[in-house]
């Protein structure tokens, strides 16, 4: 689906280009600049320090989704961006409003998602006086943004907005913050400045080094047991096709990171599925046995590598491709580090790769796939895999699933069968519980014609549950699937396996009746307790015109397998006991 990228970043396409008339306020210049960037939706919450923006908002062709908590606004902008490839925008007031965005900005930034956050600030003259609802949002967000601006003169607003969007979307995308004091929002502007006068904004990577590409191609061509690991960077670059061609040309088995779920066809004979801490046994086995490893469009964090000296120990060559040079050599010391866009590098590699079948390697991978299948217990209780399979088989290829964080996320990723980029979303780097519902609302706002399903546990759902009101109010008909195990399931599994079996503070002895709660919010709600109920319940939820919720009471002891014990290498994965 090339449109995922083609849609990105064509500022000014058929949009009202008229700049505000001389004498218009900073707020109007801000809103006009957003329109010029192609923004159609803002997720926000008004408050004392951003009211001038809200005063002029109704005059602009911008949809505003009123959130119930600013964290939700940031996650919605994030979900909007992940599902569309466009920059997501959220808006908050100063002080607590701005600080409430931080979790959401960190979530987006860690996963390289382009989000622009706009915050009101107390008036310029009162900055630094500990004024009411003053917060140092720039300082507070330094570690969770790619860049930030405090605009002290409204004449700079147009140029700052243009630059902020450019920074957010180019290179390795990320979160950008624009903090605007209230008086600047109200400042009349006669002539806007056309530039911020900055020396460097975007460090466009040079074309991939042809010498390194040739070396990588030689390593891959000489390999007997090649493995490729692919991350979300492949989707961001639109490199799925090149990835598949390279894998097929070299008979390389292809695993993916959590954020890379879906970048390689899950049912392809070379597909290995998820790598790492909770990856498939056959993927972790293949990485442990490969003699040449290619990592593309991904970081190699601890959840991918597990014990570092147990990561790809037999690999004679590791080729790491990333658009961000800082990710190369940061953890895994690849001997061939290529800075560049995933698509450019993979296509350059392909040109130098004579196709060569590797039947013995394929047979070895097939053997591991048969020896280490994903499996789950059959004990008469509703299993999460049964819920997910029933959901997925009812979704179309373009429909979107947003997973929360915890067991639900790993189950949802493991069961995923889609291949379109931007259709399986989750919080990878930060692992932010509460992500799924607001991100699904954002994804739905970006894709009104597609179905959007949010998969979550009851724990994460409770963290941002208030956004159900947003979904109903904004007519964004997301479908919430709660895999309800009445406990913090992943914590419980960790305690069982890694912390001497001491179950401590994991039981949700009190949870609301989600079915009734959904109805109280104006959603469709239903409880599902058996496999027999599943199909009709999902059909009813999908058929309901508005937001709907299914409270699926799953086996409370259901775990995620395989899992690599803390401190162990990938090859030490532990599988689900045979039931």
């Amino acid at each position, binding site marked *: 689906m090339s449109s995922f990228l083609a849609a990105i970043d064509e500022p000014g396409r058929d949009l009202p280009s008229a700049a505000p008339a001389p004498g218009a306020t900073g707020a109007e210049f801000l809103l006009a600049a957003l329109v010029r960037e192609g923004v159609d939706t803002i997720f926000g919450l008004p408050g004392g320090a951003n009211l001038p923006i809200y005063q002029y908002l109704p005059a602009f062709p911008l949809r505003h989704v009123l959130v119930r908590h600013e964290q939700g606004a940031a996650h919605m902008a994030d979900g909007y961006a992940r599902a569309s490839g466009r920059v997501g925008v959220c808006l908050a007031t100063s002080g607590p409003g701005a600080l409430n965005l931080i979790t959401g900005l960190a979530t987006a930034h860690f996963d390289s998602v382009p989000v622009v956050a706009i915050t009101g600030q107390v008036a310029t003259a009162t900055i630094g006086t500990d004024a009411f609802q003053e917060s140092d949002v*720039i*300082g507070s967000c*330094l*570690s969770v943004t*790619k*860049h930030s601006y*405090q605009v002290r003169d409204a004449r700079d607003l147009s*140029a700052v907005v*243009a*630059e902020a969007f*450019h*920074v957010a979307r180019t290179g390795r995308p990320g979160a950008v913050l624009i903090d605007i004091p209230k008086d600047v929002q109200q400042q009349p502007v006669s002539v806007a400045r*056309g*530039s*911020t*006068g*900055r*020396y*460097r*904004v*975007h*460090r466009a990577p*040079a074309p991939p080094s042809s010498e390194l590409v040739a070396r990588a191609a030689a390593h891959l061509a000489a390999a007997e047991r090649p493995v490729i690991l692919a991350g979300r960077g492949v989707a961001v670059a639109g490199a799925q096709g090149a990835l598949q061609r390279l894998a097929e040309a070299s008979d390389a088995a292809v695993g993916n990171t959590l954020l890379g779920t879906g970048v390689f066809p899950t049912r392809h004979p070379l597909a290995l599925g998820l790598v790492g801490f909770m990856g498939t046994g056959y993927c972790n086995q293949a990485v442990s046995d490969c003699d040449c490893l290619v990592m593309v469009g991904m970081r190699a964090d601890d959840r991918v590598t597990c014990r570092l000296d147990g990561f790809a120990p037999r690999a004679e060559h590791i080729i790491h491709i990333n658009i*961000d*040079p*800082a990710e190369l*050599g*940061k953890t895994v*010391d690849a001997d061939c580090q290529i800075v560049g866009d995933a698509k450019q590098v993979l296509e350059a590699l392909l040109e130098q790769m004579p196709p060569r079948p590797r039947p013995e390697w394929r047979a070895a991978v097939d053997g591991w796939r048969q020896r280490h299948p994903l499996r789950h217990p059959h004990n008469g209780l509703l299993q999460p895999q049964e819920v997910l399979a029933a959901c997925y088989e009812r979704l179309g290829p373009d429909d979107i699933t947003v997973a929360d964080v915890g067991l639900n996320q790993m189950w949802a990723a493991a069961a995923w069968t889609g291949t379109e980029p931007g259709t399986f979303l989750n919080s990878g780097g930060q692992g932010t519980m509460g992500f799924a519902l607001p991100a699904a609302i954002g994804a739905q706002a970006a894709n009104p014609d597609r179905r959007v399903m949010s998969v979550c546990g009851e724990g994460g759902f409770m963290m941002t549950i208030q956004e159900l009101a947003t979904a109903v109010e904004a007519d964004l008909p997301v479908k919430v699937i709660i895999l309800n195990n009445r406990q913090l399931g992943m914590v419980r599994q960790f305690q069982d396996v890694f912390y001497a079996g001491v179950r401590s503070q994991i039981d949700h002895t009190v949870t609301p009746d989600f079915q009734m709660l959904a109805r109280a919010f104006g959603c469709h709600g239903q409880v599902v307790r058996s496999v027999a109920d599943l199909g009709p319940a999902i059909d009813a939820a999908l058929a309901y015109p508005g937001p709907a919720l299914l409270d699926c009471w799953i086996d409370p002891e259901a775990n995620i397998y395989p899992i690599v014990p803390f401190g162990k290498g990938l090859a030490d994965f532990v599988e689900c006991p045979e039931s």
Partner: protein
Amino acid sequence: MISQAGAFGGSDAISQSQFLHGSSPRVRLISLRVEDRAGVLQRITNCLARRGLHLASCAVGQGSESGVLNLWLRVDPGTQPADQIVKQLNKLIDVVSVDDLTRSEPIEWAMALVEFRPDGRGDQIEETLRRVRAEVVHRDPERLIAALAGPPDLVQAMLDELSQLPIVDFVCSRPMALGSGSPVTACEPARHAQAGSK
């Protein structure tokens, strides 16, 4: 800056300070050109601190370009790969260029101001200052202030020499540096297409 007023410990304090040298062999000398904008130092120190890259020293100065600050940092990468210092700093939008000068035989220069209480020993002090080629920049009956400048090793040696005298206080800058040879990173200081004059 090291400033020890009043009960200054003389030679011990100077010899123990090692303020012009990194203590770890992994310490890198980093040269930065950054946009001279509000909060830029916070961005740099935060970038290092949040990744466990210890900022051992920092000197700030104005270079030949308007709107650009020059910084010289000594950074201990700790357990991180040393090239993370340059790579992470290079991601900051306000950083115009960043070079690791450690291996480029940089020309380094530091400066110190030393304050003495003559107490009738003015001649002896001034004789010593002449010998170490320090310059007297202030002189009154109560105090005498000398300025020293030179490569960090030389300034350290001069301070060691002066530590025998009745020093009241001293301050010492971190070294500035100019690298020789080609930059370690390929950071093109290309202006953004939209950027014009300020």
